[in-house]
């Protein structure tokens, strides 16, 4: 993987809006943003109602993903270009999710909705109609998804990267500062985790920093490239952004996203939790 394979610019996107075999998909934290206007021709996937099982805390299964993509008119050989608001948090999450189910050709729009809007590029409220497909998914690629037992075992041995803000890492806050703070779990972080907020990988306009800047960032923060890495946040979306930077842009080999993240770990009975900035 390299930047060229994984990321497209807004200029490229604008030139390929009508290109055959290219499907733009908006996945947003604010699931109503699409309805007010989106990249012309883009379809919407709702991360809450369409990518999550609506009863258990897990993803839709393979058959569910096949049904979803077939209904959206996405074919196995389509180039899927994902974008969204809030610096591509949920678009990066969807990117990781598409990779999990084996979609080969998926890309992220650099800067997402924010850069598109700040550039004054065209938005359209018309909802496209795409003919249905017979989409076939692969079994989940568990080489990119970490579960809780593996995370507990990774304490002190693998790189654990907590990509939440410093106040969430230390335990002062339980959610990002734009969300209410009522939560059941304990505050803090997984012992031995590095705190490298996802935002350090992004510029102000939502685009990713250069490969050189990213390498310097993770090197300075103490990420050991010779060891496997597990990234986590609160619910697994911001850590998808960091997973994307490490695995897709920098080409680091063994990088997993722990989608259970702090809402699971911080609720577990009997696991170690550390508070404070982790530097003392």
């Amino acid at each position: 993987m390299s930047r060229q394979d994984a990321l497209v610019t807004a200029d490229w996107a604008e030139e390929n809006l009508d290109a055959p075999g290219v499907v733009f998909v908006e996945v947003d934290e604010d699931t109503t943003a699409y309805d007010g206007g989106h990249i012309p021709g883009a379809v919407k996937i709702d991360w809450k109602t369409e990518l999550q099982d609506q009863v258990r805390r897990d993803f839709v299964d393979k058959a569910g993903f096949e049904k979803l993509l077939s209904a959206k008119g996405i074919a196995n050989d389509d180039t899927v270009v994902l974008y969204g608001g809030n610096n591509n948090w949920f678009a990066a999450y969807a990117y990781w999710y598409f990779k999990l189910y084996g979609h080969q050709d998926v890309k992220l729009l650099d800067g997402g909705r924010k850069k598109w809007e700040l550039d004054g590029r065209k938005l359209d409220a018309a909802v496209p109609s795409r003919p249905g497909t017979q989409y076939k998914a692969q079994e989940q690629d568990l080489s990119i998804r970490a579960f809780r037992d593996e995370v507990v075992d990774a304490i002190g041995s693998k790189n654990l990267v907590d990509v939440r803000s410093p106040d969430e890492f230390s335990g002062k806050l339980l959610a990002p500062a734009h969300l209410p703070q009522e939560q059941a779990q304990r505050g803090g972080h997984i012992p031995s985790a590095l705190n490298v907020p996802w935002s350090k990988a992004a510029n102000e306009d939502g685009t990713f920093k250069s490969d050189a800047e990213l390498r310097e960032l993770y090197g300075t923060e103490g990420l050991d490239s010779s060891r496997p890495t597990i990234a986590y946040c609160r619910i697994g979306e911001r850590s998808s952004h960091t997973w994307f930077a490490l695995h897709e842009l920098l080409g680091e080999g063994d990088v997993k996203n722990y989608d259970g993240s702090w809402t699971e770990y911080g609720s577990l009975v009997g696991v170690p939790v550390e508070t404070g900035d982790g530097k003392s």
Partner: protein
Amino acid sequence: MCGAPEQTADLPAGTDLSKESVLVGKVTNDGSPIGGAFVRLLDSTGEFTAEVVSSATGDYRFFAAPGSWTVRALSRSGNGQADVAVGGPGLFTTEVPVG
């Protein structure tokens, strides 16, 4: 709460201002509210903490810990920022002019 909450001048039900520090205000350009601006909460070192999109009436809202904060807005009308000192729980109202 998982998705982005709607930004309004009214606080969501259950907000306890005796415990929480809530930063609110409007993004403005020459006194007129700017909706659709990207409003970023930066900590005392200038590090990003959170981001919301201002409502049609220009309103933003953050839940923060006590400390020194900068609210920075990016918009098609230009960018701007304002500093906020949060000493404890309560409501902190700050206008962010852009241009």
